[in-house]
């Protein structure tokens, strides 16, 4: 995981959760500060451009409402990613139904991945962004979680509701696709 190494004095996520359950609201603020940026980054990788803050906020509200069910089998961040992803997919399904479109598929080719356009520094980066934008939704999610967040295949599988082996395959397929597009 890409979270910066914490000092021994810094409380763990589990410690902050315990404090919040005991009534310390500042613990919630610390948890939000610790994970909000990664959630926003993941939302961007999922193709969200607008309402990212609202999505992140809804993710936290839902997570804190069901913190009693969090058993700590995965990291808190992995659990938050899982909640955010489900929220986003639900929203998209509802939006598509409203428009009368077919339900979205996990392997839909990305068409909304333009969030990175604004952060390109040079031609090489522009090509790399373009390559990543052509990944399938699943490949892009796995690639982002692995490359940007440094998550293990097991944690990625938890987020995606998949298997560790499938996460590994998606990652290497994504990497191969990016390389091929860079070579064109």
């Amino acid at each position, binding site marked *: 995981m890409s979270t910066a190494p914490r000092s021994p004095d810094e409380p763990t996520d589990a410690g902050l959760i315990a404090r919040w359950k005991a009534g310390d609201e500042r613990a919630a603020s610390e948890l*939000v500060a610790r994970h*909000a940026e990664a959630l926003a*980054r993941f939302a961007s990788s999922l193709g969200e451009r607008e309402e990212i803050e609202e999505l992140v906020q809804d993710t936290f509200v839902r997570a804190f409402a069901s913190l009693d069910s969090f058993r700590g089998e995965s990291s808190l961040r992995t659990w938050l990613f899982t909640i955010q992803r489900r929220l986003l997919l639900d929203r998209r399904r509802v939006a598509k139904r409203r428009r009368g479109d077919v339900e979205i598929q996990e392997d839909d080719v990305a068409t909304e991945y333009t969030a990175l356009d604004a952060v390109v520094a040079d031609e090489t980066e522009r090509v790399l962004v373009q390559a990543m934008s052509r990944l399938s939704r699943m490949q892009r999610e796995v690639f982002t979680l692995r490359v940007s967040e440094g998550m293990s295949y097991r944690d990625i599988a938890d987020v995606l509701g998949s298997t560790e082996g499938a996460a590994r395959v998606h990652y290497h397929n994504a990497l191969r696709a990016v390389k091929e597009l860079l070579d064109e």
Partner: protein
Amino acid sequence: MNDCPNADIRDLLCNAVHDTLSADDRRRVDAHVASCADCAAELALLHRARVILSRSAAQVDVGRIAAAIPARRTRSRMPSVATWRIAATIAVMAIGAASLSRARDGNLLDSGVISVEGASGGPATDTQALSFSGRLSSLDDEELAQLLAEIDDFDGGTPAEPAAVLPVPAWEGGTP
């Protein structure tokens, strides 16, 4: 850009980017990358992709998000009325079930002790007793017949006639 056939090392490249390798793995990866152009190129690609993805994160207002989280409701240590009602219901049901079970087992009807005192009309001190200790169900036919015979012979009347309290006046002048 080709894929290196060493899958183990390639799986560690992301960890190298995030600096989460153990010391041993770090040495292995460094030694391999130093002599593998494909892995060196892949490592550079991953570094660059990570930077781009990090830059793409939208700015979010942490304070606003934290403020939207509802405060934790701490549970009262005092049991609620509903809790007491449930506890009382369970207690009543348990007592009822135990009583029913005892009755079904015959423990109330066959408690094992029969003790009756009786009198045959003699003086108050002259009492006759019938007693039995044990379980009726443990008696065989002969013993039961004997017990019934003893019950038949038993005089269960009042032990003695009460003594007269008021003086009985004597009739004068013959019978009334």
